C-alpha cells in the first residue's frame, strides 16, 4: 500500500495512526483508543524494543501511519520501523557538521512530520529535509538558517495543507528568532515571520537601542492549528541575552509569547505575551492546546497553556483576549496576573551577582514536553516541576555572532530537593482536580487515552499509567533509562500499542494476550 498521508487524514486524526507531533492539530496528545483501559492496564507488557545506535539523549516522539513507525534518531537520522516487531525497515543517515554545531541542550530531535509520501525533519545544523517515506531516500534538503550564527533545529515540523512549518532554536546564542513555512513538494520558502520585529515593524519599540538584533525569541516547540479559523498557534522563547535584561529595556516583543498567525501568509493576527522582559529563561515554547468551552455561560473558542513561568493561562483563541490565569506549580516571582494577564511582579526576583533564589527554577514549572487534553475526561494534564534555582547575572559583555549569549548563570539549591507531579486541571479555570506526586521534577510529557488513562515517565525511568479521573497509579514499568520524551498510542493488527522513548531505546507496550 503506498504511503499517502494527505492533509484530510491528518485533520481526521484516526486513532489507529499518529500522523502529527501532538496526535492532532489541536495539540491534545490524546488517543481515543480504549482497548487498553483501567481494567487491563495491569497486564501491559513490553512487546519490542528498538535500541538506538547512539549515546545522545533520545527525545523523539514517533509518528505511525499504516503499520509503520517513523522516528528521528540522533543526530539527524530518520528510521522506519515495523510496528509489530520493531524491525528496522530503512534508515536515512544524514551527515552533520562536527565542531560547528550550536546546540544548547544536546544533539536532540523531538520528531517528524508527514504529508503525502514525504517525511520532514529539522536537522541540528538548521536544515529542513524531506525523505521519501517508502524508501528513505532524500527528496530535498534546504538550509533554514546558517547554524554558525547560533541556529539549530530540534523540534518536529508541522505539516498542514501544502506546507511544512518549522521553528528554530538559538535563544542561548542571541540568534534572532523566526518561524518559517516551506512548500512540501519542493522545499521553497512560502513565508517567514520574524519573532523579533525589525525597524518599522510593530513591537520594535519594545527593544532599547540595537538590542533587537540579538533578541532571540526562538520558536523551538511544535505549534497547533485550527483548520476552521485558519489560525496557526506557536510559542516563542526567551529574549536575548537570556539572564540579563539591562541591555534590552522594554517588554521585548514577541519573546515569551503565543503568536496567532495566518498559516497561508505568516501574518500575525494577534499575540499574547506571558512574561514581558523575561530575565529567567522562561520560554513560552509549549504546545498550545485548542479547546471549546463555555466561559460565563457563553461558548468560546479557547487556547490554554501551562507556561514555563508556572502560570496556567486561558485565552480566547480568536482574539487573544486573556480570560484566566492561575499558578499550577510552585512560583515566587509574581503576586498574580492583572486583568489583562500581565504579571504583577514580586520585588527582588531579578538575577543579581550574588544570586537570588526564585521559583520556578530555570527549567520552569513545565518545559517543552507535551501536556495532554482528554475530551473524554474533560481534563488538562501537565507534568509539572516544583523547584527553585539561584539566578546570577554577570556584567554585560558584547554580543558576538554565534557565541553563547546568556550573561548570567544559575546554581542549584543544594539543600532543597525539587519535586514534581502530574497534575489534572479543569481546563477552563486551571483549578487543580488531582495530582500524582513524582519523586523528582519531570523531564517528559503525558499522553491521555480513551481507555481512561494518563501515561507519563520519570527521570528515574519509570513509565507509568494513572487513572485519568483520579490520578491513582494503575501500572508502572522500570525502563532503566531516563525518560525525556512524549508517549504515543496507535493500533494495528487489532492491537493497541503504547510507545515511549526511554534511555537509548524505543519501547513498545501492549496488553498481554
Amino acid at each position, binding site marked *: 500500500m503506498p504511503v499517502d498521508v494527505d492533509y484530510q487524514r491528518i485533520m481526521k486524526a484516526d486513532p489507529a495512526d499518529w500522523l502529527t507531533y501532538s496526535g492532532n492539530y489541536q495539540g491534545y496528545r490524546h488517543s481515543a483508543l480504549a482497548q487498553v483501559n483501567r481494567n487491563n492496564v495491569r497486564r501491559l507488557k513490553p512487546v519490542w524494543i528498538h535500541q538506538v545506535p547512539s549515546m545522545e539523549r533520545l527525545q523523539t516522539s514517533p509518528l505511525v501511519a499504516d503499520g509503520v513507525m517513523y522516528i528521528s*534518531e540522533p543526530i539527524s537520522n530518520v528510521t522506519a520501523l515495523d510496528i509489530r516487531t520493531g524491525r528496522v525497515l530503512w534508515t536515512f543517515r*544524514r551527515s*552533520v557538521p562536527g565542531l560547528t554545531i550550536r546546540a544548547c541542550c544536546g544533539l536532540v530531535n523531538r520528531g517528524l512530520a508527514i504529508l503525502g509520501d514525504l517525511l520532514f525533519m529539522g536537522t541540528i545544523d538548521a536544515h529542513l529535509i524531506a525523505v521519501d517515506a517508502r524508501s528513505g531516500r532524500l527528496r530535498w534538503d534546504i538550509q533554514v538558517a546558517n547554524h554558525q550564527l547560533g541556529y539549530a533545529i530540534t523540534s518536529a515540523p508541522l505539516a498542514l495543507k501544502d506546507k511544512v512549518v518549522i521553528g528554530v532554536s538559538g535563544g*542561548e546564542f542571541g540568534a534572532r528568532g523566526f518561524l518559517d513555512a516551506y512548500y512540501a513538494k519542493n522545499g521553497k520558502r512560502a513565508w517567514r515571520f520574524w519573532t523579533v520585529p525589525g525597524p518599522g515593524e510593530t513591537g520594535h519599540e519594545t527593544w532599547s537601542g540595537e538590542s533587537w538584533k540579538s533578541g532571540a525569541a526562538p520558536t523551538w516547540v511544535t505549534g497547533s492549528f485550527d483548520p476552521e479559523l485558519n489560525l496557526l498557534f506557536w510559542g516563542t522563547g526567551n529574549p536575548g541575552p537570556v539572564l540579563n535584561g539591562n541591555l534590552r529595556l522594554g517588554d521585548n516583543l514577541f519573546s515569551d509569547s503565543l503568536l496567532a498567525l495566518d498559516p497561508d501568509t505568516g501574518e500575525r493576527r494577534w499575540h499574547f505575551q506571558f512574561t514581558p522582559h523575561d530575565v529567567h529563561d522562561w520560554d513560552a515554547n509549549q504546545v498550545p492546546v485548542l479547546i471549546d468551552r463555555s466561559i460565563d455561560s457563553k461558548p468560546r473558542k479557547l487556547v490554554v497553556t501551562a507556561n514555563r513561568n508556572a502560570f496556567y493561562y486561558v485565552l480566547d483563541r480568536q482574539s487573544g483576549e486573556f480570560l484566566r490565569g492561575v499558578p499550577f506549580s510552585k512560583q515566587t516571582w509574581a503576586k498574580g496576573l492583572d486583568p489583562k494577564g500581565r504579571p504583577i511582579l514580586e520585588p527582588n526576583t531579578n538575577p543579581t551577582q550574588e544570586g537570588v533564589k526564585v521559583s520556578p527554577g530555570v527549567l520552569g514549572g513545565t518545559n517543552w514536553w507535551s501536556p495532554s487534553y482528554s475530551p473524554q475526561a474533560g481534563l488538562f494534564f501537565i507534568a509539572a516541576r516544583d523547584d527553585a534555582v539561584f539566578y546570577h547575572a554577570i556584567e554585560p559583555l558584547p554580543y558576538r555572532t554565534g557565541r553563547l549569549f546568556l550573561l548570567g*548563570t544559575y546554581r542549584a539549591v543544594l539543600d532543597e530537593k525539587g519535586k514534581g507531579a502530574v497534575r489534572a486541571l479543569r481546563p477552563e479555570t486551571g483549578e487543580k482536580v488531582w495530582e500524582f506526586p513524582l519523586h523528582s521534577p519531570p523531564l517528559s510529557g503525558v499522553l491521555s487515552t480513551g481507555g481512561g488513562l494518563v501515561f507519563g515517565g520519570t527521570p528515574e525511568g519509570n513509565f507509568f499509567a494513572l487513572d485519568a479521573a483520579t490520578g491513582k497509579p494503575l501500572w*508502572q514499568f522500570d525502563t532503566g533509562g531516563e525518560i525525556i520524551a512524549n508517549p504515543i498510542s496507535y493500533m494495528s493488527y487489532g492491537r493497541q500499542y503504547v510507545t515511549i522513548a526511554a534511555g537509548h531505546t524505543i519501547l513498545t507496550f501492549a496488553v498481554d494476550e
Partner: protein
Amino acid sequence: MEISKKALFTCAILVGSGCVLIGYESFSGDAPESALTKAVYILQNEARIRWYQLIYARLNLEAGRNKQLYLQNCGGCHGPDGHNGRAANLAVTRLLRAPDDAALTALIQGGIPGTSMPAIMLDARAAWQIAAHVRRLGRAPKMPGGDSALGKQLFETKGHCLECHTVGSQGATTGPDLSAIGSKRGVQALRRAILNPAASEAYQLVEIITRGGQRVTGFRANEDTFSIQVRALSGRVTSFLKDEVADVRIDRTKSLMPGYQNEFTQLEMDNVVAYLASLRGAQ
C-alpha cells in the same frame, strides 16, 4: 625526480596545516566514518586544543578576563581564590579528576554527574579560559591553616572517626569513604559536615513501616516514585514497593553521624579540617 627531505617535510607541514585549515568537516550519522574523515576531525580537534592551551594557558593571555569568567561561574562555590569554599579546593597542583587540560575543560562544560558540580553552559573558548585560570590557581597551592598531623591524631582518637569512616585501608564502612574527601569538598563544607552533619543522598536515614507494623530502618540506597531500596547497617539491601508498605519516613536532614560542636575546640577543628583537606586519594 629526487625529492629532498626538506621538501618532504615542508609538504607534510603544508598538508597538515591544510587539513587543519579546512573549516568544515563532517561525519556521517552512524555509518562508519572514512579513515580520512576521522583523521581530519581528530586533527582539527587536536589543533583547537593546542591553540587554546598555547593562547590561554601557556602565554597567559587575557588573564584578567580568565579570572573574571572564573569568578562569575565558579567563585560562588569554589571561593574567589579557589580554596576556602564549599566545593573542592582548586588551589592545588594536581586535580584528581582533571589530569590534563582537555579533561579539565570537559569537566567544566559537562560537570560531574551525580555531584554538586553542574555543567556550565559556556562555549569551548570560555571554558578554556576558565581552565587556564584554574591552572594558574594551582601553581600557587594553598592549603587551609591548621596542623594536619595533629588533625590525624584527633581524627583517629578523640573523634572516633574510623569507627564509621574509611581512610585508605583503615576504618569501617558505615559512613562514606573519606580517602579522597579533600579533593571533593572545600573547607567550608568539611567544617559544616563535622559540626552539623546532614546526610548526603546515599546516606539518608529511612524508616519503613510495613503493613504488618514492622519497622525497618537503614540507609536509602536508591528511590524512585514507586519504590525505595534500603541498606541496613549490616549492608543487606531490601527493596520495597511504596504502595505495599504503610509508611516511608525519610528525614532528609538527619544524619547518623553525631555533630562535633561540643567535642572539638576551635583549634582542634582547624587541625581536623586541615587533615581532611589533605586527603586526596591514591597518589
